[in-house]
């Protein structure tokens, strides 16, 4: 029983992390209908940047981390200007392919710059782990949990009520119409990429602190797809809920597996089975907006 409970807690904590990454997908999707396959590399870039600031510059975490976020903001804007701007108005799928190209480039560039070996983060918190409901968890997970809740609340408001949030949604719906309303599609895209890159960096640093930074970290990008879809592609809250569900699901599946099934990798596969099941009941995920079907 305690094992089950500990797994549950762990699921929630890891799920919150998935939620953060999922949110960064949703941000870009909401403004541009693009699924960013380079999201995992964003995590990686954020993690390496922070690592570099902390080790080479010996900055304390509370300075290095904000600088990382600022850098990622700028990075998102620049990336948008250089690569994605020329793609405005082009078929979405081509843009998605471009993000795949970007992921190849970044993956190689990161290895070039930082090498192929995993590198540990210097110790950040006075106590690297803390006890949460009887489970020892990494302090940094708790930090990301708090940050993700803040971010989620912020974006929930942003898309519902702010002028720019509305404009982003309009851009996603139809770029031509958005332009006709005086919305600068470029600005919207730049903004969404910048914010998304920043949010990814939070996740990247978290994972990096726990496991050390290495290129393989970018795998997170694909790993959270089920979470994104479960919640609904265009729902910020959905992303977080989806992340939590996947996190808990993984852990529960593992419990089931280790206690009775002995399949071995239920924790990896179960989210996908559940994903299909949920989608069959709710084709737009739990919180996604339905397409309007009218003739």
């Amino acid at each position, binding site marked *: 029983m305690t094992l089950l409970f500990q797994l549950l807690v762990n699921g929630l904590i890891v799920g919150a992390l998935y939620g953060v990454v999922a949110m960064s997908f949703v941000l870009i999707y909401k403004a541009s209908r693009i699924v960013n396959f380079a999201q995992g590399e964003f995590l990686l870039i954020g993690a390496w940047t922070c690592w570099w600031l902390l080790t080479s510059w010996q900055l304390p975490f509370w300075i290095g981390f904000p600088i990382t976020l600022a850098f990622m903001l700028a990075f998102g804007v620049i990336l948008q200007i250089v*690569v994605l701007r020329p793609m405005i108005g082009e078929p979405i799928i081509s843009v998605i*392919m471009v993000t795949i190209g970007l992921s190849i480039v970044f993956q190689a560039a990161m290895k070039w710059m930082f090498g192929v070996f995993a590198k540990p983060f210097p110790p950040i918190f006075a106590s690297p782990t803390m006890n949460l409901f009887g489970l020892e968890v990494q302090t940094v997970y708790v930090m990301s949990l708090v940050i993700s809740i803040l971010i989620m609340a912020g974006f929930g408001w942003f898309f519902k009520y702010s002028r720019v949030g509305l404009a982003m949604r309009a851009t996603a719906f139809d770029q031509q119409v958005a332009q006709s309303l005086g919305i600068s599609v470029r600005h919207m895209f730049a903004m969404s990429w910048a914010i998304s890159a920043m949010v990814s960096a939070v996740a990247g640093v978290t994972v990096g602190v726990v496991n050390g930074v290495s290129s393989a970290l970018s795998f997170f990008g694909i790993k959270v797809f089920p979470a994104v879809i479960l919640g609904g*592609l265009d729902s910020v809250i959905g992303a977080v809920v989806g992340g939590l569900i996947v996190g808990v699901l993984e852990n529960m599946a593992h419990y089931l597996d280790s206690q009775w099934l002995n399949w071995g990798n239920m924790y990896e596969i179960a989210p996908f089975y559940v*994903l*299909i099941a949920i*989608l069959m009941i709710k084709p737009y995920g739990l919180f996604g907006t339905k397409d309007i*079907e009218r003739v």
Partner: protein
Amino acid sequence: MASVSIIPSGDYKTSYGSDTTIFPTRTSRNFAILGVILLLACPAFMDRYWLSLLIQIGYLGIAALGLNILVGFTGQISIGHSAFFGFGAFASAWASNSLGVPVALAIPLAGVMTTLVGLLFGMPAARLKGLYLAIATLAAQYILQDFFARADWFTGGTAGTIAEPLTIFGFAFDTDERFFYVALVALVVMYILATNLMRTRDGRALVAVRDHYLSAEIMGINLTKYRTMSFGISAFYAGIGGALYAHYLQFVSVEGFTILFSIQFLGMIIIGGLGSIMGTLMGTAFMVFLPEAMQALTKLVSGTALDTALNLKDNIAFLREMSIGLVIILFLVFEPDGLAHRWKQIKAYWKLYPFSH
């Protein structure tokens, strides 16, 4: 009124039959035939390296065509294509190893088996659209990969399985020179089948579903049927491609069929041109040649002044990877509609030359 159709001038069709041929003009038809003849002669003057690349284009091109039917023609994105490709590979090996089916029959049989799997995983297509469906296919990718690693009886488990070379009447197609013909024939046949499909009823229905599924339904098209069917057809092509791959390499291992491979398939059709049959082939060739070209290029760079100036040495591999990514990006920035589109424009340009407007 401005007519927007670009039909070669001086090309008047006298019957509807001649207006629905695969090749719009006699010249293009002759060129195609000439091309095939040239290809037939390839083994005579090409070394194994080039042949192996062409063979790769062959089996990958068949599978990619399947994906294009699904994504390009029916508008359903799949990021699980390599799993179907893998299923075809295992199925064919299994049929010939365990059931004793001759390889020549095992290949189409594998196609049919993969079709069934495709139909199974295509079932969500009845309800899901767009990226939701895409991620459901991602689930198919992982579920199938897991199956490959587990189903010892079928795949040999994680150890993998061997596949016998294709033998017809005692003649084994076990070298690149010989297998080249197998790949070529399969490619031509599969492409002709697809071309025919797309100009007849069910092919049109698939495209109609993509362009406007609501009105397609009102035109009498059964959405569920066609959405699922498209998965079946796509899986069939993947299965055939995979089976050819198995009997070419003569060994199949789970490791080969990852999501990265699926994404490469997507790359082939996007770069080639969604919804274009010949574009698929061009895109496949692009994706096969690109790493090779970059490899050759880096070879040239290494040891030169540039190398020492940039202090590449150990890092040239990364430079190459980056340039592969960059070429894809640049390509799409300049030609987002794919090679087929560019090809069409070039043709249109020359047709209308010097009156390019």
